[in-house]
Each structure stands twice: as C-alpha cells, then as structure tokens.
C-alpha cells in the first residue's frame, strides 16, 4: 500500500511540474514533423518587390537638409536689385535692360 501511495505521489508531482512549465513536447509526433511546419517558406519571408521600400534615389522635399549657402560676389557687374529699377533707369538712360536668368542665385556658391 505504501509503495502504491509513493508511486502515485511521484506521478502527480511530475504531472504538476509539466503543466506549470512549457507545454510538454509530444515526442511521438516530433519525429513526423516536416521542415515546412517549423520553417516559413522562403517566399513568405521576403517582402514582395512592389512593397519594397529603399532609400529614395533623389532628394525629396522632406529629407533635404538645408545647409546655408556660401555667398559669393556676383561678378563685377553692378546689378539693380529689381527689374522695375532697371526698367526705370532704362527710360532715363536710353540703354537697354539686360535681364540675366539663371537657376539658383547669382551670389550663391553653386548657382
């Protein structure tokens, strides 16, 4: 009787320990698992090309870091500040107006 009670106690203790920790691994079924059950297919691990985002090739408005431009002297020409000023003076002097168009600013380092 004592031997039976001892055996029952040990069985109960093992059962309690198993339910407290991780779910017990069923060894009998582990041998039958296929690789696909424990590893995701490679295709599903990769992000589809259409959803792939990378560093944009060109600088956009949002990520452009504005650095202060280095100012340079815009040549030795004495420029009027506005076209209206140049036209007003052209009326008086009879000289034609020279309008120089450019991308950027003539007094920037890169213009």
């Amino acid at each position, binding site marked *: 009787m004592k031997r039976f009670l001892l055996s029952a106690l040990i069985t109960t203790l093992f059962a309690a320990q198993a339910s407290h920790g991780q779910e017990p691994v069923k060894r009998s079924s582990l041998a039958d698992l296929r690789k696909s059950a424990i590893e995701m297919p490679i295709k599903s691990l990769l992000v589809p090309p259409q959803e792939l985002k*990378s560093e*944009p090739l060109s600088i956009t408005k949002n990520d452009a870091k504005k650095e202060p431009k280095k100012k340079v002297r815009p*040549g*030795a020409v*004495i420029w009027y500040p506005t*076209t209206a000023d140049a*036209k007003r003076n052209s009326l008086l002097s009879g000289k034609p107006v020279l309008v*120089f168009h450019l*991308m950027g600013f003539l007094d920037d380092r890169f213009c």
Partner: protein
Amino acid sequence: MLFSNPEISAYINQNFEPVWESVRPVPTITLDFGNGQKVTRTLHGNIATYVCTADGSIIDVIPGVYEPQAYLRQLKKLSEASKNIMVQSDRQFELIGKYHKDELARNKSLQKLIVEPQTSVEGHGKAELVSDTSHNEWFRRRQIHQMLLKQNGATPDSFKKALYKNVLHADLDDPHLGLDKYLTATYPFDDNS
C-alpha cells in the same frame, strides 16, 4: 564666371541696365565617396541673357553658356541693335520683328560657313564650352528668333518657360526638370519620387 571677366563686366556696366533673376533653385548633385569626402556640383544650371527695351519687351536672347569673347561680341551686337530700336519707340515692335527676320536670314546663310567660333578660353572644359557656344549661336539662336517672331512683345517673365522647355530643354514646370528618366533608367525600385 562671365561676369567676373573685367572686359565683359565693364561693357555691361557701361551699355546696359543690368538685373539678374532666379527662375528656380539650382539642382545640385553630391557624390559621397563614403570616407568623408564629398564633391558637390550643379547638375542642370542653364542660363539666359535677355536684352529688352525699357518697357521690358524682349529684343533678343543669348541662350546658355558662351565662351567670353563670343559672349562679348553678342552683347556688343545687341547693344547696337537695341539703340536703333529704342530710339524709335513708336515703331518698336515693327523693328523688333524686322530684326528677327534679318537675323534668321543671316543665320541661314552663315550656318554652312561656320565651323566653330573664335576661342579665348584655355584649360579644362574648353572644348565643351566652344561646342556649347557654337550650338547656342547657330541652333538655339535660330529657334529663339523664330519664337520671338511669333511672340513679339514678350517679356522675360512670359517667355522663360517656353525658352527653358523648348530651347534649353529644362522644363521649369517639372520638379525633376525632365531629368528623372535619365537618372532612374536603371534604378530597380518603384520609389523614384
């Protein structure tokens, strides 16, 4: 830089009422070598020099980059032409129209004879500058004369988009200036914004 040239700047100061205007920010490209070394250059900075009457009507345009002596020659020629037009302000548009017709005829007759302009630039980039000058003078100028014959009385402000798009091949309405197809032709992703 043309306007640092003493001869050119003195001529402009003496014979014109000069002003400069920006048509848009200049695009730049930075090459990052990955070791802290970076090189930044402008990418597409086309320029245009308009010569106008006192009311702002365009007489003619010098498009793009010229080698200094060729630029000075054009300035001198335009200064003379402008004086003749501006002293007869009541016939201004008629004279501007005649000027463009005459220039078109001259351009056509001389084009076969001209190989390249006289050069005055030494060093790196000389060949490209001479080539640009020649192209500007014999092809772009002809386009401009044709455009201004149809738009007599245009001002730099009203003419600039057509000039940049059709002559200088930089569409001011396009945020990428029409360059994106070249820059991203071999880029494999979809996010070329």
